[in-house]
């Protein structure tokens, strides 16, 4: 076991960890040693091949297919230099005011979150894509929504030099997304922050981090030799994500003092829906995600977004098998896709735990409200597809594999609520939130409004696990805003904490 002394350790290099690293980086000029530990590799540009299965294995935990405990959902998050910012689409939304109000965290105000979010919108080159860069898959969504009178909004995105490969979720081979792997981490490293990749932190007890650095066949070699390390630090910031951060704190023995640890996770359960048009579309190339509608946020508790996934992901998300499934897949070039996100409420039954071997266990029950939302969203998406001119629509809960235009008016009959069952359709999540939620009460929350763990002044959390409820928008900008607050608090208290 090698011993290493640091001043600040940051666990995780995604939207939270990368932000904290860059915000604290100026301290390096005063001789403060800051180390970021990232579990995944630092991939070289030529290792981002765009091949779906290969990149899933290289970038995602359990290839993006980690199952919830009851096996009803898969969870996707990345392990790489830059965390999940390497694989998001780059849609950059400021959390709405009503969400922060519903979070009801004393000391956390929306105007503060909004102002900090704006800082990152600027830092990450967030803008609206020019109309000429919008492909037909996205235009058809606008056409369908507009015909039905639904409000449509364009996503601001954080790309620069995007060539429209459409491979955002597999790691952009052009380096066009302005994730922490492109912006905050390189800036932090230039100022002296050390980023150690292939490094798994197994516990953070008493300001000591146990770290294992592994050798990997892919990516740049880690800057540390493979082996076991004990790293002492004055401040530890945990930013592993809504699964890893609670699990790390459990493994470190904090579950005993923090009754809310791991509890109240929300996931924005998602479905991918598809329809076939009678002609080839520009769909899998061009930027994949440009529009959404929040028309049903209040009444239906769901959002609809444009999306276009790759062959395996698409095949997996269609129900059925055999000739009809295969025939639909052969129409890939004529396919339009819509992503549904259900806006779920936290429940005590939904939580992160640690398994017998220290592995993460996510217990999440798809409640009746979420299933109702998914049911309503499927029918709404089908209406949008038909209004956009689709000739047949695949609805996972449909009584037939596809529904044709002749039956477009019978969706209520053809998509029965009784068909919406856990384990009967491909439900996934890439928006993992909660588990170390902020709040004032130590019984119902894990950290204060500045990410400091209750009763442990040297320990902070800076990721989406802080969210007391779901964000109702793609969460990364909010994570950065909250991480910015954490960094401010660490800066303000560093001298006191160091002593």
């Amino acid at each position, binding site marked *: 076991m090698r011993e290493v002394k640091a001043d600040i350790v940051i666990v995780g290099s995604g939207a939270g960890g990368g932000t904290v690293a860059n915000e604290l980086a100026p301290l390096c000029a005063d001789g403060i040693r800051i180390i970021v530990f990232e579990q995944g590799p630092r991939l070289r540009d030529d290792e981002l091949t*765009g*091949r*779906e*299965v290969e990149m899933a*294995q290289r970038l995602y935990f*359990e*290839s993006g*297919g980690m*199952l919830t405990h*009851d*096996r*009803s959902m898969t969870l996707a998050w990345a392990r790489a230099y830059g965390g999940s910012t390497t694989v998001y689409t780059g849609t950059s939304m400021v959390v709405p005011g009503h969400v922060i109000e519903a979070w009801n965290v004393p000391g956390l105000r929306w105007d503060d979150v909004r102002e900090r979010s704006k800082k990152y919108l600027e830092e990450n080159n967030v803008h609206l894509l020019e109309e*000429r*860069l919008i*492909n037909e898959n996205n235009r058809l969504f606008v056409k369908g929504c507009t015909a039905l009178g639904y409000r449509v909004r364009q996503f601001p995105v954080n790309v620069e030099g*995007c*060539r*429209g*490969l*459409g*491979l955002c979720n597999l790691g952009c*081979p052009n380096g066009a997304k302005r994730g922490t792997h492109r912006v905050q981490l390189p800036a932090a490293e230039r100022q002296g922050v050390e980023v150690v990749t292939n490094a798994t932190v197994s516990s953070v007890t008493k300001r000591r981090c146990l770290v294992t650095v592994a050798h990997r066949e892919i990516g740049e070699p880690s800057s540390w030799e493979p082996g076991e390390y004990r790293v002492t630090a004055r401040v530890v910031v945990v930013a592993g994500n809504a699964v890893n951060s609670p699990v790390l704190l459990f493994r470190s023995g904090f579950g005993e003092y923090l009754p809310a640890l791991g509890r109240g996770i929300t996931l924005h359960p998602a479905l991918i829906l598809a329809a076939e048009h009678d002609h*080839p579309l*520009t769909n*899998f*190339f*061009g930027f994949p995600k440009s529009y959404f509608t929040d028309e049903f946020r209040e009444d239906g508790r769901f959002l609809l977004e444009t999306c276009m996934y*790759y*062959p*395996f992901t*698409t*095949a*997996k998300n269609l*129900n*059925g*098998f*055999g*000739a009809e*499934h*295969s025939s639909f*897949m*052969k129409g*890939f*070039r004529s396919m339009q896709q819509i992503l549904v996100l259900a806006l779920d409420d936290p429940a005590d039954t939904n939580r992160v735990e640690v398994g017998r071997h220290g*592995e993460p266990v996510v217990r999440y029950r798809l409640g009746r409200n979420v299933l109702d939302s998914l049911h309503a969203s499927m029918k709404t998406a089908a209406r949008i597809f038909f209004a956009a001119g689709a000739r047949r629509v695949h609805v996972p809960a449909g009584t037939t594999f596809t529904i044709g235009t002749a039956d477009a008016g019978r969706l209520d009959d053809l998509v029965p609520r009784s068909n919406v*069952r*856990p*384990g*009967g359709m*491909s439900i996934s999540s890439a928006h993992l939130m909660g588990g170390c939620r902020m709040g004032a009460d130590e019984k119902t929350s894990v950290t204060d409004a500045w990410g400091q763990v209750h009763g442990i002044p040297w320990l902070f959390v800076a990721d989406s696990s802080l969210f007391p409820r779901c964000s109702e928008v793609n969460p990364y900008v909010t994570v950065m805003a909250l991480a910015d607050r954490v960094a401010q608090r660490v800066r303000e208290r560093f001298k006191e904490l160091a002593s």
Partner: protein
Amino acid sequence: MKHLSQERASFLLTVAGRIVPEIREMDPDGISRFFGIVDGALGGRPRKARRQFGAFLGVVRWLGLPRWGMPFERLDDDRQDRVLRWLQRCPVRVLRQGFWALRTIVFMAYYGQPEVWPSLGYEPRWDGNEALHA
């Protein structure tokens, strides 16, 4: 195959041919790629999940025995599909989920092959934005 016996692999290929009909027409290279992906996928899962997958293949194989008196591979196409359809809509959640896992791994091993993509018209291009106006 590191993570599936020869017998189970052979049975998986039979079932896979009902899930994606094109798998029955794959050449030896395609079959080799198919099992390469299956092996990689199973290798990346916890040991318990690998054991459960193997056990589920056993369930699929013998599910039709009480009704038709023979294992899955000796049933005709229609009966094989009936077995799979029953599993897909099975009231027992664990069997339904097993079928989803089976389907997922078959789709991954087939549609995850770049060699298959041209048959779908999916050919990722580096100049996607230029192609929008081609």
